[in-house]
């Protein structure tokens, strides 16, 4: 009579102890990397011929032209 009970108790203990061995499952999010074609810099073309400073000057002149308070004295041809 005691033998089946002991077997059952041992099985229950083994089953319960199996839960302690469970590993934590946590998702790891990784930062993606761009997979497409590479783009060139806006000054790497026939117009600016790689002259970054000339491109920056052109953009700066355009930037400042958006300010109507300083348009009375034009400083750039763009």
């Amino acid at each position: 009579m005691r033998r089946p009970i002991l077997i059952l108790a041992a099985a229950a203990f083994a089953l319960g102890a199996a839960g302690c061995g469970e590993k934590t499952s946590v998702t790891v999010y990784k930062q993606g990397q761009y997979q497409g074609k590479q783009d060139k810099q806006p000054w790497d073309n026939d117009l600016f011929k790689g002259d970054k400073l000339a491109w920056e000057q052109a953009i700066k002149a355009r930037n400042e032209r958006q300010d109507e308070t300083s348009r009375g004295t034009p400083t750039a041809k763009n």
Partner: protein
Amino acid sequence: MARMKFLADAERCIECNGCVTACKQEHEIPWGVNRRRVVTLNDGVPGEKSISVACMHCSDAPCMAVCPVDCFYKTTEGVVLHDKDLCIGCGYCFYACPFGAPQFPQDGAFGLRGKMDKCTFCAGGPEADNSAAEYRKYGRNRLAEGKLPACAEMCATKALLGGDADVISDIYRNRVLRRGKGSEVWGWGTAYGKPEQRPAAKPGAKS
């Protein structure tokens, strides 16, 4: 290095949709795709406010984070662009974007979706600068011509500023200091006159 941004001044925008038209014309945007839109709050009510909205080229762009094929990239000027050859048109970027910037063509065999299209800050895409392929996929590359986005440069009231964030911030800051606030704002009296004298509500009356 310039960090390109848009800045929309709600006090100046007159809802002319000139920016929308300039964008459509510059890039030959198909019907149903609006890279830029003008949104008006309290339309028709005195004091209504309009704002021009497109891709804001976020510093930490949610579209880049959610794209399953990683087709987004950011240029050295801070412009968020994408490779249409890689895009699968899943629409995740549309759900992630707080500005509704990603657009999907409405035509074609299946009616909806297709490769995503959005504002490029007039910087084209990953094709040879000012090539036919770049124009067909992404539109004109004005930045490579030393120019700023067509929408900002076309804006008649200069409500929409676009360019180096530091410069346009300074322009906007000076503008706010000059024009004051509330009813001091230039043009308010011309547009709306004096405030209406409304009779006081009767006690217990429903509003």
